[in-house]
């Protein structure tokens, strides 16, 4: 209990400020349009932010160990289920079926939407 008490004297405003700085980096990084920087700043930092929120705001570390095990087990099983369907997701066709999405064309941004490309309209039918 005393440990928990100490933990909850954390300077939460400081942690929030760190999260906001990380948010700024995650938005600014991808502007450089370099793939590895985008991956690190956008997705790497998302994991860091999530870890900070889980540890410092949700206080997962204060909960009994089995709580963490339950969370990790759910995560692992979810990934197993997804992995089980991944082989179908990545195929564009099979016996007597094919994915309509594989025929998709690039849909231009909104600003160019009225220039007659019509990709979005074709897809909606």
């Amino acid at each position: 209990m005393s440990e928990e008490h100490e933990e909850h004297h954390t300077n939460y405003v400081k942690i929030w400020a760190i999260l906001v700085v990380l948010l700024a980096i995650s938005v600014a990084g991808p502007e450089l349009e370099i793939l590895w920087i985008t991956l690190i700043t956008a997705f790497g930092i998302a994991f860091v932010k999530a870890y900070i929120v889980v540890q410092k705001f949700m206080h997962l570390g204060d909960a009994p160990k089995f709580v963490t095990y339950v969370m990790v087990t759910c995560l692992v099983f979810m990934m197993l289920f997804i992995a089980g369907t991944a082989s179908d997701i990545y195929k564009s066709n099979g016996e007597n079926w094919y994915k309509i999405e594989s025929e998709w064309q690039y849909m231009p941004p909104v600003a160019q939407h009225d220039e007659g490309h019509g990709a979005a309209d074709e897809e909606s039918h």
Partner: protein
Amino acid sequence: MKPVATTRSAAGIPTGLLAVWWIVASEIVIFGGLLAAYLMYRLSHDAWAGHAANTNTAIGTVNTFVLLTSSLFAVLAHQAAEKGDGKKAARFLLFTIGGALCFLMIKGYEWNYEISHGMTITTNTFWSFYYTAAGIHASHVIAGAIIMAVVAKDAAKGLELQRVELIGIYWHFVDVVWIFLFPLLYIAK
């Protein structure tokens, strides 16, 4: 008589707290599956980069900031509740609800713009994912705000202060989900 969720702790933590962690565990499967499916489709369909170019990064950034700030208020409410200050905890919970409303209003504006420009849930699979993921998340924001209002009402009278931590854990999880949705929907273009 106090409810079982408050008085019993057969698993080493109060039953109410255990129940919230169970909810979070089930939500991990729901949102995790959604995000993982999105990621798989995104990686196997280059056209999705073009669709994602239509989402508004500035709006996504502001909404992320709003949710992070509301999480700060939620944890400050928990801190106040631990000190037995129900009124302060209720006030911070109301700030958190304010954050939720702000998030929903921005989301409403964003969706209104997108739908009016022809990007609807039936336009293609990208937009189906977009509206499904953001919609399920927004429904959790609405549920959290309603529960927080109920908790704040009692907390203001100094009652059931342990509930402040419980709703806080749920709220932070909603924040964590958005932390992952944000780069997927708004940054990976």
